[in-house]
């Protein structure tokens, strides 16, 4: 079966610019996650969707980050304006009911200069 698809794989932007990442989860997976992984650290949950509703966005910096999951399938994560400390890999993941095995995409590597 196809895995979690993400794009773009790599992005370099200047600070204060905006960027958007796209994710297509595994077919049939109702739960979708966006994680931020800074080099040398574990993935940090930014937002979790169940279908098109938000389950947890407590660690999402809402002044600059936004995410949506229209129609409960694909999702986009936007950063505007970007800061240097946003340089990280943005991992999208999906799963069946929350708490089951999480399948990660390859990640979108962001460098803010």
């Amino acid at each position, binding site marked *: 079966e196809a895995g979690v698809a993400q794009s773009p794989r790599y992005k370099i932007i200047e600070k204060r610019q905006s960027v958007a990442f796209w994710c297509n989860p595994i077919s049939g997976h109702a739960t979708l996650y966006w994680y931020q992984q800074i080099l040398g650290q*574990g993935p*940090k*949950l930014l937002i979790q969707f169940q279908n098109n509703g938000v389950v*947890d966005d407590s660690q999402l910096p809402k002044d600059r980050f936004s995410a949506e999951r229209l129609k409960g399938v694909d999702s986009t994560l936007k950063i505007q304006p970007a800061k240097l400390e946003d340089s990280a890999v943005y*991992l999208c993941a999906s799963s069946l009911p*929350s*708490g*089951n095995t*999480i399948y990660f995409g390859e990640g979108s590597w962001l460098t803010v200069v």
Partner: protein
Amino acid sequence: GQQVMQIPQYQHVQEGEDFTTYCNSSTTLSNIQWYKQRPGGHPVFLIQLVKSGEVKKQKRLTFQFGEAKKNSSLHITATQTTDVGTYFCAGLGYSTLTFGKGTMLLVSP
């Protein structure tokens, strides 16, 4: 909020030596999951433990879940160079899966 801590942060072993990483949660967990991330790759699910005191084995890997469901360990017997990577535990609290910072394993031939 829920915190998950892992030790050690880093370990370098000779091929054939054993390796253990430990995971501790600040709160009781519903389950704990282990993931492996190769350099430049993404985390890949290894196993999930649910029951208090549970022990599971996958070939040379042994996973344990503590009696109080707040700690866990991963032990690799006779490491191989293919074991190189970062091993993360992730604890499920009420509804959120929280990852530890991981233990990076280097194996020298």
